[in-house]
C-alpha cells in the first residue's frame, strides 16, 4: 500500500522520513494547528509550490534539462483558470475548464519548444526558453484588455470555497468550518495527488529512461532510446504539472497577475528550492519549498524582532533589518550549496557530503 503510494521510492533516511512526515502532517492539519489567515496562506502556498518545484525537478534533476520557461507554464495554468472564472462566472465547471485549458495550452507550447529546440545544445535550449518566457511575460502585460495587464485579474470563485460558506455552524477544535477550509483541502489533496503522480513517473520505466538520457544521451540512443522524444515528453509533463499548480494558485488567491506567476523572481526561487532541497530526488521539492517559503514568509518577522532587540548595536541592527531578508536568504543559499552540494536530501541520505 505504502509502496504503491510512494512508488517504492522511500525517503531512505530516518531523519528525512521524519521531516517529510512532519511536513505532510503539518500541512494536513494546518487549519487546526496554525489557525490564522497568514499561516493558512503559507500552508497553501507550500502545497502548491511543492508541485511546482517537483515538476521542475522532473525536468532539471531527472532529465538534466535547464529551462527558464517554468514560470510561463505556471502562469499559463493560473491565467487559464483566472480567465474562465472571470468570463464564465464562479463555478466549478469554470475551474475545471480553466485547468484543462491551461494544461492543454502548456502541453502544446512545451511540445513545440521541445521538438524545435531540444536537439540543440543544452545552453542554447536554456537561452531559447529564457527568450520565450520573457516574450510571453511582455505579451501578457501588453494584452491588458484580455489579461488585465500589470494589474492582473481579480475574480470570484465558487461560493463553496469562500469564507462566507458555512456548512456547519459549530467550530471544530476552535477552527471555523467554512469554504476557505474546503478550498485549502481541495488544494492540499490535489497537490498531494499530483506530487505522488510525479513520484510514480520518476520511478516508472519512463522515469528511469529519463535518468539514462540525462546521464549519457549518446549511449541512451545506442541502446535504443530516442533521446529527443524522452526529453520532449519530460518537458511536456513538467509543463502540464506546472500549469496545474498554477491553476491551484489562481483558485487560492482569487487573483492572477504577472507578479504572482510569471516573474523571473519566481523562476529563480524555483531554482533555489530545487537546489537547496536536492535535485533529482522529488523529496527535495518538499523540503526546498517548505524551507524557502517559510523563510520568505517569516524571516522578515524574525528579523524585525532581532532588529528591535539589537537597537543598541548600530551595525548589527542594520544587518538584521527586515529589508535585508533577501541578503540573508542569499547567505543561507550559498551556505547550503557549499555544505550540501547534493542538497538537503542528498545530505540526509549520506551522499555528496
Amino acid at each position, binding site marked *: 500500500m505504502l*509502496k*504503491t503510494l510512494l*512508488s*517504492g521510492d522511500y525517503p531512505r533516511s530516518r531523519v528525512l522520513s521524519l521531516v517529510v512526515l512532519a511536513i505532510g502532517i503539518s500541512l494536513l492539519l494546518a487549519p487546526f494547528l496554525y489557525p490564522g489567515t497568514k499561516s493558512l496562506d503559507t500552508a497553501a502556498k507550500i502545497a502548491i509550490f511543492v508541485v511546482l518545484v517537483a515538476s521542475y525537478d522532473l525536468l532539471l534533476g531527472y532529465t538534466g534539462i535547464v529551462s527558464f520557461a517554468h514560470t510561463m507554464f505556471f502562469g499559463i495554468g493560473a491565467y487559464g483558470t483566472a480567465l474562465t472564472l472571470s468570463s464564465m462566472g464562479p463555478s466549478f465547471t469554470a475551474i475545471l475548464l480553466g485547468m484543462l485549458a491551461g494544461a492543454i495550452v502548456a502541453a502544446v507550447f512545451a511540445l513545440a519548444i521541445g521538438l524545435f529546440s531540444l536537439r540543440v545544445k543544452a545552453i542554447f535550449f536554456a537561452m531559447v526558453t529564457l527568450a520565450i518566457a520573457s516574450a510571453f511575460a511582455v505579451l501578457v502585460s501588453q494584452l491588458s484588455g484580455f489579461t488585465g495587464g500589470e494589474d492582473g485579474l481579480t475574480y470570484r470563485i465558487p461560493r463553496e470555497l469562500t469564507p462566507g460558506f458555512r456548512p456547519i455552524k459549530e467550530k471544530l477544535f476552535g477552527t471555523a468550518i467554512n469554504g476557505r477550509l474546503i478550498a485549502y483541502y481541495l488544494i492540499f489533496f490535489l497537490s498531494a495527488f499530483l506530487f505522488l503522480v510525479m513520484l*510514480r*513517473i520518476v*520511478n*516508472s*520505466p*519512463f*522515469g*528511469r*529512461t529519463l*535518468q*539514462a538520457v540525462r*546521464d*549519457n544521451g*549518446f*549511449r*541512451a*540512443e*545506442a*541502446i*535504443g*532510446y*530516442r533521446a529527443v522524444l*524522452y526529453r520532449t*515528453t519530460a518537458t511536456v509533463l513538467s509543463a502540464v504539472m506546472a500549469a496545474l499548480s498554477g491553476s491551484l494558485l489562481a483558485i487560492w488567491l482569487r487573483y492572477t497577475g504577472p507578479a504572482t506567476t510569471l516573474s523571473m523572481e519566481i523562476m529563480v526561487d524555483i531554482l533555489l528550492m530545487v537546489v537547496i532541497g536536492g535535485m533529482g530526488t522529488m523529496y527535495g521539492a518538499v523540503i526546498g519549498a517548505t524551507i524557502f517559503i517559510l523563510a520568505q514568509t517569516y524571516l522578515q518577522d524574525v528579523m524585525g524582532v532581532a532588529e528591535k532587540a539589537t537597537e543598541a548595536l548600530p551595525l548589527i541592527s542594520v544587518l538584521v533589518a527586515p529589508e535585508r531578508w533577501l541578503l540573508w536568504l542569499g547567505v543561507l543559499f550559498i551556505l547550503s550549496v557549499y555544505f550540501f552540494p547534493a542538497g538537503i536530501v542528498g545530505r540526509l541520505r549520506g551522499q555528496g557530503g
Partner: protein
Amino acid sequence: MNREHPVLETRDLTIRFGGHVAVDHVSCAFNRGTLTAIVGPNGAGKTTYFNLISGQLRATAGKVALNGEDITRMSVPARTEKGIGRAFQLTNLFPSLTVRENVRLVAQAKARKGFDLFSIAENHVELIERAEHVLAEVRLLDKAGLAVSALSHGDQRKLEVALMIALGPQVLMFDEPTAGMSVDEVPVILDLIRGLKADADRTILLVEHKMDVIRSLADRIIVLHNGALVADGQPAEVIASPIVQQAYLGRDPDEIESAVGETANA
C-alpha cells in the same frame, strides 16, 4: 530474415571530414555466424567505420545494408532496434546509476518499456533478472549494487560489453574490448566473445590489436589503412599476404605480431 543477403554489408562506404577521408570506399560483407577481426594502426578509421555502421556518423557516400535492407539513413536507435549492437572503445556508461541499473536499462529498451509511465520500474522483475544474468556472464554480479563511478577501469570495460550483450543483437561490434584491461581480466572478455561466437546466429566484428587473440578467435581478418580496405581474407593468409607485408607493414611475417602489439601500446 532474408538468408540470401549477408547479415551486414557496406558498399563504397565513405566519410570525409573536411579534406580528410577517414573511411574510403570500404566495400565488405559480413556473413552470419562469422567473427571478423578488423586491424590497422591507430587512426586507420576502424572506429569511424563502426560509427558509420551503427549510425553515430552519417556517410558522405556509399551504403550500409542489414539483411539486405538499406539502413544508411537510419537513426542510431532505429539501427539498434534492427539488431546492431555496439560496445565502445572509450567506455560510455551511465555514470551516476548503479551497475545493475545500467544493464537493466538495456533490458528495458529491448522490451520496449521506455514509455511506460505509470508502473513501478522495480516491479518488472524479469528485467532485473535479465540484467543480473548478463552481469553474471561478465563476472560483475557481485558489484551490481555499486555506482559505475566506483568501478575500476577493467570492470567498466566489462560493463561496456555487458550493455551490448544485454541487447541480444544480431551484429556485435567490439571496439578494442580488452584495451587497458589487466592480464587476468582479459580472459573473461575473450571467453565471452568465444561463447557468443558459438551461437551461429551472431555476426561479430572485432577491432583488436593483440595478434594471439585474433588468431584464436577470428575466421577472417580485414585490414584498414588510411581509411581504405587493403587486405581481406583468412587470418593466416592475410598475415602472410604481400600487401600486408610490403605496402602496409613492410617487414617479414614474424615481426607483424610485435608491430601490431606496438600500435596497441602506443
